[in-house]
C-alpha cells in the first residue's frame, strides 16, 4: 500500500516538539499516558490502512449523487461510520460524563490527521457529528443532551452545521431562515440551507441539524440570530416521525466527491420543529465559541492531504527514471542509463517544498490544538493567555494548510509530469480535494480580515505580544545550538519587520481609513503565516538537535538530519518571500480600492 503519512513525523511533533507528556500532566488527562496514546494512534492507523485508504479512489470515481429524493453515498460508508464510532473517534475528547474519554484535543487532532490523510472524504462525517454534539453539550438543555447526544456519539445519527443560505455565505448576518415560536416552547423552522456537509445519506437513521435562524421579529444583523436543533426525524414516544426537512439535492463537486454537500429545505409544509439551544439571539456567539476547534479541523484536513500528496509524489520520484544528471563538465553522458528523477535538483526542490509545508503546517495545527487544550484545561491563571494565543493563531491554522497546502499538492502533481494530470494516478485527486479548504469554514479572504482587523489588534495587541513572546522563547532555545543561530536570528529579524509593517498599516485604521487598512489583509495573512510557520520550523529544529544529543525517541540520524535540512530549506526558500510581500504591503497606489470608474 502507498504511504500517505509518516508516523515517525507525527510522533516527533506530538511527543517531542509539542511535548504530549506535559499536556498529559494536566488533571483532566490523569487517566492517559504516552504509551496508551501511542497504541490509540496505531489503532487509528490500522483502521485507516484497512478501511479508509482502500476506498479513497473509489469514493471519487463513484461520487455521492442524488436520486429519487435520496442521497446515495459509497456503499461501504455505513460500515466505516459504525467502526469509527466503535473506535471512539466521535466524542473521544468529551468529558467522561458525556460519554467521552477526556482525550486532549491535541490527540484528537492527531487521530483525525491520520484518517484525513488516508481518505479525506470520511472524517468530515464523524467530525461534524462530533462538533454538533459538542454544541448541544455546551449550550443545550439537559433534555436535548439526553435525546440527541448518545445516538450521535454512537454514530447512529449524523450531525450537521447549517449556516449557509443562497444569499448568505461569508455574511451570516444576512440569513433569512426563520423560527416561529409555538405555544409549547418549540419553534417552527422555515428556510433554505445550502452546501450542508454530511446533510443526509442512507447510512444514518437520523440527522441532527444545528440550524442558524432568526426568531420572527428578531433584530437585523448578527445579533438577531439564534441556534436550533432541527432533526430530520423528530423523536417521539411513538418513535421517529418525519420533521419536514427535505433534501433537495446534492452539489456535484470537483473534489471531496465522496463527502455529500446537500441542499436542505426546512418547513415547506410548515411542520419542521426546531428546539432552541441556549438563549434566543445568541446563536452566532455559540457557534463562534466552537469555531476555533472547527477551524483547526479544516487546517488539519488540508495538511493531511498535503502529507498524502507528498508521500505519493516521493514514491514516484524514487521509482521514475528520466534524464541524466549534469556532469561537472556541464554535459550529460547519453550512454549512462537514465537517473531516477529524485536525483534532479528541481525535483528535490519540489519535494522539500512539500515536506516543509506539510510538516511545518502539521506542527502549527498541533500547536493550536495544544493551546486549545491549555486554554480549556490548563492552570486557571494561564487560560486567558492561551485563549489569546489560540485566537490569534486560529485564522492562520485554517489558512496556511489550505493555501500553502494547495501549492504543495500542486508541486506533488508536477513531480509526476504528464501522469500527474492523468486519472490513473492519485495526485490529481488530492489536487481537486484540497481546493475546498480555502473556501469553507470562512474563505481565505474572511480569515485574513479576521486576522488583521480583529486578532492582531484585540486587547490592544496583547495576543500579538504573547505570540511574539512564544517565538522569542524558541529563539532563546535555538541560540544555544550554534547550528541554529543563523535561523534564530532570521526569525528575530522577521518579528521586528512585522512590527514595522504593522506600524505602517495600523495608522490607516486609526485614521478611520478601514478599507485601506484591510485592502491587503490577504497579503498580510500570507506574510504573517510564513512567519508563524518559520517559528514552527525553528521549534522543530531545536527538537531535532536535542533528540540527536539525547537519543530520546529513538529516531535515526537520517530522520533528524532530514528535519534540520527541511528547516534550512524553509528559511532559505520560503522566508525570503516575505520581503516581496512587505514591498506590496507598503505600496501607496491603492490599486484595489473601489474607484468610481469600472476597470474590468
Amino acid at each position, binding site marked *: 500500500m502507498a504511504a500517505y503519512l509518516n*508516523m*515517525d513525523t507525527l510522533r516527533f511533533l506530538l511527543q517531542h516538539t509539542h511535548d504530549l507528556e506535559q499536556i498529559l500532566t494536566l488533571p483532566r488527562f490523569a*487517566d*492517559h*499516558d504516552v*504509551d*496508551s496514546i*501511542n*497504541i*490509540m494512534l*496505531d*489503532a487509528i492507523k*490500522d*483502521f485507516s490502512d*484497512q478501511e479508509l485508504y482502500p476506498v479513497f479512489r473509489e469514493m471519487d470515481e463513484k461520487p455521492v449523487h442524488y436520486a429519487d429524493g435520496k442521497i446515495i453515498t459509497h456503499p461501504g460508508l455505513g460500515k466505516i461510520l459504525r467502526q469509527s464510532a*466503535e*473506535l*471512539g*473517534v466521535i466524542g*473521544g475528547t468529551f468529558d467522561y460524563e458525556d460519554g467521552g*474519554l477526556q*482525550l486532549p484535543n491535541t490527540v484528537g487532532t492527531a487521530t483525525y490527521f491520520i484518517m484525513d490523510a488516508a481518505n479525506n472524504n470520511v472524517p468530515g462525517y464523524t467530525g461534524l457529528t462530533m462538533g454538533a454534539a459538542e454544541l448541544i453539550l455546551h449550550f443545550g438543555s439537559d433534555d436535548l443532551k439526553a435525546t440527541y447526544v448518545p445516538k450521535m456519539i454512537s454514530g447512529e445519527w449524523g450531525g450537521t452545521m447549517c449556516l449557509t443560505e443562497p444569499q448568505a455565505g461569508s455574511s451570516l448576518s444576512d440569513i433569512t431562515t426563520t423560527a416561529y415560536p409555538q405555544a409549547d416552547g418549540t419553534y417552527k423552522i422555515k428556510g433554505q440551507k445550502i452546501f450542508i456537509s454530511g446533510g443526509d445519506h442512507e447510512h444514518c437513521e437520523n440527522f441532527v441539524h444545528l440550524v442558524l435562524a432568526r426568531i420572527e421579529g428578531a433584530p437585523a444583523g448578527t445579533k438577531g440570530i439564534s441556534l436550533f436543533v432541527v432533526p430530520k426525524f423528530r423523536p417521539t414516544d411513538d418513535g421517529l416521525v418525519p420533521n419536514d426537512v427535505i433534501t433537495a439535492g446534492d452539489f456535484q463537486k470537483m473534489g471531496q466527491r465522496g463527502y455529500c454537500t446537500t441542499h436542505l429545505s426546512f418547513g415547506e409544509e410548515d411542520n419542521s420543529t426546531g428546539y432552541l439551544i441556549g438563549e434566543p439571539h445568541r446563536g452566532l456567539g455559540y457557534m463562534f465559541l466552537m469555531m476555533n476547534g472547527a477551524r483547526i479541523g479544516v487546517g488539519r484536513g488540508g495538511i493531511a492531504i498535503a502529507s498524502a500528496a507528498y508521500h505519493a509524489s516521493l514514491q514516484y520520484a524514487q521509482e521514475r527514471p528520466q534524464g541524466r544528471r549534469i556532469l561537472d563538465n556541464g554535459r550529460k553522458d547519453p550512454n549512462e542509463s537514465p537517473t531516477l528523477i529524485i536525483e534532479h535538483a528541481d525535483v528535490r526542490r519540489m519535494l522539500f517544498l512539500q515536506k516543509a509545508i506539510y510538516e511545518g503546517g502539521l506542527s502549527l495545527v498541533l500547536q493550536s490544538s495544544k493551546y486549545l487544550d491549555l486554554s480549556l484545561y490548563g492552570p486557571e491563571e494561564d487560560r486567558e493567555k492561551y485563549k489569546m494565543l489560540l485566537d490569534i493563531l486560529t485564522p492562520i491554522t485554517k489558512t496556511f494548510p489550505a493555501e500553502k497546502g494547495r501549492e504543495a499538492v500542486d508541486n506533488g502533481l508536477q513531480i509526476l509530469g504528464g501522469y500527474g494530470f492523468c486519472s490513473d494516478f492519485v495526485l490529481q485527486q488530492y489536487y481537486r480535494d484540497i481546493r475546498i479548504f480555502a473556501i469553507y469554514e470562512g474563505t481565505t479572504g474572511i480569515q485574513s480580515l479576521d486576522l488583521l482587523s480583529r486578532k492582531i489588534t484585540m486587547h490592544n495587541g496583547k495576543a500579538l505580544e504573547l505570540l511574539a513572546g512564544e517565538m522569542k522563547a524558541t529563539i532563546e532555545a535555538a541560540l544555544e545550538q550554534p547550528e541554529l543561530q543563523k535561523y534564530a536570528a532570521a526569525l528575530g529579524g522577521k518579528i521586528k519587520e512585522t512590527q514595522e509593517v504593522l506600524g505602517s498599516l495600523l495608522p490607516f485604521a486609526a485614521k478611520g481609513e478601514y478599507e485601506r487598512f484591510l485592502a491587503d489583509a490577504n497579503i498580510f495573512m500570507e506574510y504573517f503565516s510564513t512567519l508563524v510557520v518559520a517559528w514552527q520550523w525553528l521549534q522543530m529544529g531545536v527538537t531535532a538537535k536535542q533528540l540527536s544529543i539525547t537519543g530520546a525517541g*529513538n*529516531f*535515526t*540520524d*537520517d*530522520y533528524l538530519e532530514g528535519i534540520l535540512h527541511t528547516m534550512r530549506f524553509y528559511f532559505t526558500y520560503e522566508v525570503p518571500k516575505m520581503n516581496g510581500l512587505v514591498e506590496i504591503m507598503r505600496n501607496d497606489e491603492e490599486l484595489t480600492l473601489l474607484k468610481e470608474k469600472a476597470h474590468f
Partner: protein
Amino acid sequence: MKLLVCVSKTPETTTKITFNGDQTALDTSGVQYIMNPYDEWYALVRALELKEALGAGTVTIINVGPAANDPVIRKGLAIGADEAVRIDKDGGSSLDVAQQIAAYAKENSFDMVFFGKETIDYNGSEVGAMTAELLDVPFVSFATKLEVEGNTATITRDIEGGEETLEVATPFALSAAKGLAEQRIPNMRGIMMAKRKPLNVVAAVETTNHTQVLSYDLPAEKSAVKLVDPEDMDELVRLLSEEAKVI
C-alpha cells in the same frame, strides 16, 4: 478454561534491517516495535473468541523481556486479554524463552498455550515446540482453524502442499498461522481501560545458555528485473529454468 497466549515484540514491518559493527546483533537505532503480528492477529484474537464463545475463562498473555516491552504487552490487554505476565529477562535464546514460559505455565496450569507460527524478525518458529516439549503436552503447529468442544479441540493446520485436520485433547499448545482469526483493532476505550488490568512482573528462573550468535548476514540482494523480448520465448524458458530455477 485457562488460555495462555505468548506474545513477542518485533521490529515494525517497514524497518530497514541493519546489524551492529561485528554483525552479532540487530542495530536497534531508529527501530519502532510492534507486537508480532502472528501473536496478535491470530493467536490472541482466537483465544479471545474462544473465551467469548464459552462466556467463561481467562486469557493471559505472557512475554519474556525487559520493561521496555510493556507498551506491546499493554496493547494485548487493550485488545482484550484479561491479564498479562512479563518474565523479567532481557535477551536469551529460543530455548531460554521456552524454559521461562514453561516454568510459568507449569506452575499455573493452562488448558491451551497459544503461539504465533513464528516471529517476523528471526522467523525461528522454535519457541512453541520447545515449550510444548518442556510442558510435555502435544504441539500443533501452523493452525489455521480451531474449534473446541468440551475438552477436545479440532484443529486444521497447514502442511506442505495442503492441510490436515486433527483432534487433540487439552492441555495442548499450538502455533497460529494466517486464517486462524482476523485482526482486531482495539478501540480507544479498551486501550484506556487496559491500564487498569494487571501486568505482573515475574522474576526469571535460572537457565543455562546453549546457543551463541556468531554473526548475522542479510540475504543476497535480489537481482535486477530482466526484460525479455516477447518474441523470444526460448530465452524466457532458458532464464526461468537456468537462472530462476522455477521450471
